[in-house]
C-alpha cells in the first residue's frame, strides 16, 4: 500500500517500519483526506507538536498507523506561531478530537471545525498556553506559590557528591 502512496508523494523511509512525508500547510487537508480514503493508514495514533520559537513556527507531526499495525507514517508540516490555525481532521479521523483539544489547550492552536475546544485538563486557565516557550514556568510558580523553607542543617547535595567522588578517587589511586 505504501508503494502506491510513494508514486503520489515524496515519501522518505526513515526506518524499516517508519515513513516520513513533509507537506505544506496548504495541501494538508487534501493530502490527509487522500491518505485516509485510499490507503490502509486508518488510525491517527498521535499528533506531536514542537515549538520552534526561533523560527516562529510550530512543527506538527501527524502519525498514522496501518490497519495491520505494521507501518507508521509521519506527516510533518509547519504552521506560523502567530495565528496558528488548522482545519480539523474530525471528518477523516474521529480520534483526533481529544488530541486537537489537548493541542489547543497546551499550545493555543485553533482547529477550525472542532466543536470541543474548551477546558480539558486545565480549568479556568487565563495565562498564555503553558507549553508555549514564551511562558515562563518558574516566574509563574514563584508568583503563585510559597515554597517551604529547607531545614537549617541542609547541605548542598552537589558539593557533597563532589566531595565523595574525590574521596573515592583518592582511595582508588592510593590502592594502586
Amino acid at each position, binding site marked *: 500500500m505504501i508503494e502506491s502512496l510513494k508514486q503520489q508523494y515524496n515519501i522518505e523511509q526513515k526506518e524499516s517500519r517508519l515513513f516520513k512525508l513533509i507537506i505544506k500547510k496548504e495541501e494538508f487537508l487534501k493530502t490527509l483526506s487522500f491518505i485516509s480514503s485510499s490507503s490502509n493508514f486508518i488510525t491517527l495514533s498521535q499528533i506531536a507538536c514542537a515549538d520552534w520559537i526561533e523560527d516562529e513556527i510550530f512543527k506538527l507531526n501527524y502519525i498514522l498507523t496501518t490497519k495491520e499495525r505494521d507501518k507508521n507514517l509521519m506527516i510533518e508540516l509547519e504552521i506560523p506561531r502567530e495565528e496558528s490555525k488548522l482545519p480539523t481532521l474530525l471528518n477523516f479521523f474521529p480520534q483526533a478530537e481529544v488530541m486537537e483539544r489537548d493541542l489547543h489547550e497546551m499550545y493555543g492552536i485553533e482547529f477550525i471545525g472542532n466543536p*470541543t475546544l474548551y477546558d480539558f*485538563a486545565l*480549568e*479556568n486557565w487565563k495565562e498564555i498556553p503553558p507549553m508555549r516557550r514564551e511562558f515562563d514556568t518558574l516566574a509563574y*510558580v514563584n508568583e503563585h*506559590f*510559597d*515554597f*517551604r523553607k529547607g531545614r537549617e542543617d541542609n547541605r548542598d547535595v552537589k558539593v557533597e557528591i563532589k566531595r565523595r567522588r574525590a574521596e573515592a578517587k583518592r582511595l582508588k589511586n592510593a590502592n594502586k
Partner: protein
Amino acid sequence: MQEGFIDYQKVLNNEEHAIKSTQSVIQKAVDWFRSKSMFVLAYGTGCGAIEMPPTFTSRYDIERLGVVGVATPRQADILIVSGYCSYKTLKRVIRSYEQMNEPKFIIALGSCTINGGMYWDSYNTIKRLEDYIPVDMFVNGCMPRPEALIEGFVKLQDNIKNAKKEAGYIKYRENNEFYKANQKKIFGDNIEPSYEANFEGMNR
C-alpha cells in the same frame, strides 16, 4: 517475633506513649474506639495511589489495624492525598473533604504534598498541601513504601488515641478564612466545582 516484622500494636501500646493529656475517661474511651476503626475513602490523587492496593490487600493487610476502605466521603474518616495534587484534583479533594463527617483526618502521602517534590516548578501542581486543607500526618518519600504508610497510620492512631495533636478538622473549622483565602488565591472565584458537564456540540 519474626525478624524484619514490626509489632505495630506493641509500638502503639508502648509506655512512652502513655496518656498525658487531660482527657476525661469517656473521652479516652471514645478516642480509643475511634483509633481502632478508621474508614479510608477509596480515592487516589496521584501516583501514590499505586501503593494503596498492596497496603489494603493480603500482602500488608492493614485491616488488622482496623483500617478499612469505603466508597463514599459520607462514610469516610480518613482521606489519603496520595501524591501530587493539581489544581483540578485539589478542587475535588476539597469537595470530598468538606463532604466527610467529623471527625475526619488527612494523611498526605509522598514528597509532592510536602514541598512539591519533583513537580516543584510545575505550573499546575500545588506545593504545600497544608495551605489549602489541614493535614494530620505527612508520610514522606517518593514513593513511600506500604510500610511507611502503615507507620503513618499507626502514628495517627496514636495521635487520636492520646489526643496529642489538635485534629485537623478543628483547625479547618476555626481557621476557615485562612484556608478559604488560600484556596481563593489559586482558584479565583471558582472555588465551588461545577459538575455540569458541557456536552454542547458533542451530540454528533
